[in-house]
């Protein structure tokens, strides 16, 4: 293949999936494939990012995503540093601009940010020389989650194009939903979203998805089902009356799963509410559930993202 056709990563930051091309997405997934093997070695470490500094800036609590990034950074031999909202100046009223300027003064190479408000990674990316990786900005995007989900689907189905993917739950407040919709549509999947009408955002069809208001309709003949976490505090905002009723309407049970394809895989970004959006026998089902594999693949995908972004920094230097 001529060199000109080889996809190259040219972005300083990974802020979302919306702005990526299919080729860029495939590049991350293919790169993740090559890092996957590192996690299976007895010595799980490569020197790729030796001497690079990565700051994990978590303004919102997160166990899974932060640990996953941290493990990815360590396996790549990067020097990493964790800031979290409770332990830093962030809780002392420092503005985000000042936080950004102070970080910049320490010359990190990459910053991984999780924040409750959409657009905050974009705000930092504009001001920092460091590459910025969005690890979740409010209900906007969570690009590495969508990439690890796609990686997991590819492992099982060998492709994304032509699959029917049902995404079920609190559509309005989910960053996982948005990043996944962008990615799956760009790679040619058919996406059906389902959830209570009170949690369905305005004009969702504009994102290229079909909308269903019953679980049965959404998952009929589905190849992949993604269940979204229901945040229980939504109940107080009149979005649903009770957990019991939510489970009756949209909880995924083994009996309901029969409507999907026989080889359907069931995914969940975690943390799960067993008995709210998903029954335990589905969550733990060895033939359908790939929920823990998602976590495993998360490390490979994040290694790929860190590697690609650090490479851009290298060339710019």
């Amino acid at each position, binding site marked *: 293949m001529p060199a000109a056709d080889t996809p190259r990563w040219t972005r300083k930051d990974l802020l979302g999936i*919306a702005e990526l091309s299919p080729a860029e997405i495939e590049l991350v997934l293919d790169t993740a494939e090559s890092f996957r093997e590192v996690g299976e070695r007895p010595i799980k470490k490569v020197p790729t990012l030796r001497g690079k500094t990565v700051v994990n800036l978590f303004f919102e609590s997160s166990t899974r995503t932060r640990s996953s990034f941290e493990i990815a950074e360590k396996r790549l031999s990067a020097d990493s540093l964790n800031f979290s909202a409770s332990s830093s100046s962030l809780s002392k009223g420092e503005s985000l601009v000042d936080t950004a300027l102070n970080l910049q003064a320490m010359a990190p190479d990459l910053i991984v940010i999780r924040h409750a408000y*959409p*657009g905050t990674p974009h705000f930092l990316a504009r001001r920092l020389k460091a590459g910025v990786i969005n690890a979740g900005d409010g*209900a906007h995007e969570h690009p590495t989650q969508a990439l690890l989900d796609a990686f997991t689907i590819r492992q099982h189905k060998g492709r994304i194009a032509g699959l029917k993917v049902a995404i079920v739950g609190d559509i309005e407040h989910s960053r996982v939903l*948005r990043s996944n919709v962008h990615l799956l549509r760009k790679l040619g999947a058919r996406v059906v979203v389902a959830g209570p009408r009170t949690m369905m*955002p305005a*004009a969702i069809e504009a*994102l290229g998805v079909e909308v269903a208001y019953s679980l049965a309709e959404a998952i009929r003949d589905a190849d992949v089902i993604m269940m979204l976490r229901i945040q229980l505090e939504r109940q107080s905002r009149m979005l649903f009356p009770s957990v019991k009723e939510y489970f009756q309407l949209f909880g995924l049970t083994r009996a309901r799963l029969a409507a999907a394809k026989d080889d359907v895989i069931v995914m969940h970004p975690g943390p799960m509410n067993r008995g709210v959006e998903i029954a335990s026998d589905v969550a733990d089902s060895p033939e359908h559930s790939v929920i823990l594999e998602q976590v495993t693949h998360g490390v490979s995908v994040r290694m790929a993202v860190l590697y690609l972004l650090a490479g851009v920094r290298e060339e710019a230097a």
Partner: protein
Amino acid sequence: MSRPLLVAGGRLVDPSQGLDGRFDLLLEDGKVSRVEERLEAPEGAETLDASGLVVAPGFIDIHVHLREPGQEYKETVESGTAAAAAGGFTAVACMANTDPVNDNRSVTELILSEARRCATARVYPIGAVSKGLAGEELAEYGEMARGGIVAVSDDGKPVQSAELMRRALLYAQHYGLPVVQHAEDLHLAAGGVMHEGEWSTRLGLPGLPGAAEDVMVARDLLLLEETGGRYHVAHLSTARTLELVRRAKERGLGVTCEVTPHHLLLTDEEVWKSQFSTDTKMKPPLRAEADRQALLAGLADGTVDAIASDHAPHHADEKDVEFSLAPFGIVGLETTVALCLDRLVRPGLIALARLVELLSTGPARAFALPGGSLKPGSPADLTLLDLERPVKIDTAAFRSKSRNTPFHGWELTGGPAGTVVGGRRITLP
């Protein structure tokens, strides 16, 4: 007593008299004294050569936040009226959400005494609907009217209680004051930071639904039908609210409305295009394209009475934060006229005379202000326009203390070329 001023050689556009043509204008004793095709300068008169310029009744911005008293770091009467003069306005009506609130005569008089000291445009204070903008007790409209208010509004906050709105509509009639509503149902709007629609869905930002405006105006119009009086919709932003106002006018209700340049020129997509710039965050929010088109139609068919900027200055530090945390609002005094000339008149969406009406005659009528006309006997307030002047919006050159605008860098053709207030040419230092 100032010298008479002859404004000669300009194209006079005065919708109040249906005039559009070459006329000279003589200003004496603070009033327009003569309007004729050709006038000789009387003895001792000064002459203003207006050839190549449009001469219009002084533009009035009926929705401005001067921030004084209380938030002088954002704007003052002095800096705000300098911005008005630079932007082609001869008068502004300033909102009551100062600190302390303009809910009593002493604050009204403080604003006006500051205006007498240093203002370069007329200042018309708007009093609060309710004491402390708390939405509970009526403020003293009579006292404030004697002090000089021209309308009442809790702007920044809606009059949420239907009972208070009904009382305000009734009581304001004793003083001939319009009740100006910032129409927003706070329950529907709770937590929202941008228009609820495709872009809030894409960006995951909490939405401010158009319905929050619509239900409030629908309710108020039902009340107005019973109470009589005058009701004015501030910064009208949705297609459905516009339709409500259109039908209410057809039924003969005493309703008027204003729209802002940003709602006429930008949509919710701007939040993404600007990568979450907080200069795209205001209330009401930038709406969908269908709403924008409806507002343009409302300009053309006469439903809209005024274009007003909702000039809302904020300090750069307050705006340079996460989108969700930033205060709502943008400045507009120094961008409105040039934007309207280039984006509304130049492409032919409305005629120049209609724009002049929306910026002078219309707002004067809505708030029963002097001005808005160049008939002999009217106040000698003029706005001069240069329709060919290239304008590049540059926040560094603003007279306002604040810089929060999404229009920085826009290149336009046509803009203000000076103002005359009370027969005196305004010159800014």
